[in-house]
């Protein structure tokens, strides 16, 4: 059997760990955060920061993502009392992130929307240019695919983890990953004949 890299072991371990996480533990964290427990909210941040970061990265310029991650959590903190079902915290947070990303995108000047990553790449090393170029291809995919693929390929989340965090079904995540990868392979392929 081939040996596994550290990242892979982490990924599988995260998958297994996540499957055994009791949903009620999260509800308790949300409840505690509502009561003003900042440590509990910090733990929610640790759990969900990658999801929020990935959702934003799928929609807004890279340079703005980190600031917006913080904005999403601050907004969530302020609105936490309006969350009716503590079990749906992830889906609720994802909705806040998507809304904030859309608002941010609308506020960008048109030239920033179209050229920001391209101009950024001019001053970067080859590896960074390659990464930016691949990211742009991923971001050119339909919403559902690009978000799920970024959570998987950039943030290193497993399929089960993406499903649990975002509130999507396993089936939806699986199909988004599968179809998104098909499209991504086709777009990255230098030979159109290899397209699916």
């Amino acid at each position, binding site marked *: 059997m081939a040996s596994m890299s550290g990242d892979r072991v982490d990924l599988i371990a995260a998958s297994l760990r996540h499957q055994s996480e009791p949903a009620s533990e999260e509800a308790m964290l949300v409840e505690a955060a509502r009561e003003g*427990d900042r440590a509990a909210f910090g733990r929610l941040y640790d759990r969900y920061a990658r999801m929020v970061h990935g959702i934003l990265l799928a929609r807004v310029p890279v340079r703005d993502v980190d600031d917006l991650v913080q904005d999403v959590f601050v907004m969530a903190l302020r609105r936490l009392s309006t969350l009716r079902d503590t079990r749906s915290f992830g889906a609720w947070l994802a909705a806040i992130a998507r809304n904030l990303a859309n608002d941010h995108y609308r506020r960008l000047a048109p030239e920033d929307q179209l050229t920001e990553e391209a101009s950024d790449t001019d001053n970067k090393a080859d590896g960074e240019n390659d990464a930016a170029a691949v990211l742009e291809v991923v971001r050119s995919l339909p919403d*559902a695919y690009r978000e799920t693929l970024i959570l998987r390929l950039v943030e290193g989340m497993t399929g089960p983890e993406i499903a649990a965090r975002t509130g999507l079904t396993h089936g939806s995540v699986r199909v988004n990953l599968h179809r998104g990868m098909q499209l991504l392979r086709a777009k990255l392929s230098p030979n159109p004949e290899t397209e699916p």
Partner: protein
Amino acid sequence: MEMKNEAQATIGDYLWNGSGEPDPEIQRLEGVLGQFRHDRPAPVFPELVPSRRRMRWIPVFAAAAAAAVVVVTFLIAHEKKSAPVAVAGWSVSGVAGAPRVGNKTVGVNAGAGRLGVGQVLETDQQSRARLQAEQIGQIDVEPGTRLRLLSMGTGLKRIALDRGTIDAFIWSPPGEFVVDTPSAMTVDLGCAYTLQVDDAGDGVVRTSLGWVGFKLNGHESFIPAGAACKTRPKTGPGTPYFEDASPKFRNALTRFDFEDNTPQQRADDLAIVLAEARTHDALTLWHLLARVEDGQRVIVYDRLAKLAPPPAGVTKAGILRLDQPMLDLWWNQLGFDDISIWRHWEHAWAGTSAAALGK
């Protein structure tokens, strides 16, 4: 063949949860894109004001609290009544001309409208429209089209295409999005396809990405990317074929599916199809196994076995008696897609939606 299926499964597992045989391209993408990964520690968040302060119940406040509850309850109920009700449906935007939802025109620059359950969208010869639903996909509606939204919600999403052309790009899970036409039910199993229905109810589906299932009266056709399939009212789906097959092959197949009236005509056209078939046309021959008369099945088997030898576990006797697991095993060997996706969703339908579909 088993090794191939196993490889497909393990690649799928790697994408799903990092287990199984690593896919080199996915690993490369993980490496390249990993530099964008979130790596910042939690910031210091502002002090929270608890949403619910614990308070002692002082009797004198109890009556006031109860009264407040009554007032707030009334206000909430009132607010709920006056709040707009979310309507399940697709958003509709005009792309050209003046598409209509019912009697209402959807202007090109007027922003998105709504196609609700039971409503009809029509485009004239100068109009085009686009339907979008975040959890389902996007449908471009070409000129001269009439379609109806039959259902939305968490289960099956259905529209009926009465006539015209739609280009569908679907990302809901396989089997959830269905288009009824006068001559077949189209089931999305993949990504992108074009469906045309003429005024007589004749239809054709062309798949550009993924694959699509056609179904009517027990007739099933699987149409992978690059292939097409015709349907006719009452007859249902024909046999799928690749559009780059020879004209002789395609014409004979159309006659075999829809026009031949005598056993001799069918035998003659079947002979042409078998003679003209290329390796790639195993798609067509596999479907024909279940569509020819019992006595003709052996010649289809022989030709298909020559073009795409059956895998271990598939016997001639089994195929001649249309053993389903063996047919599925052979299909998977052809390299179009794993038929278990279809079987899974077909099974799901059988329990939940077949009655609703009336098929």
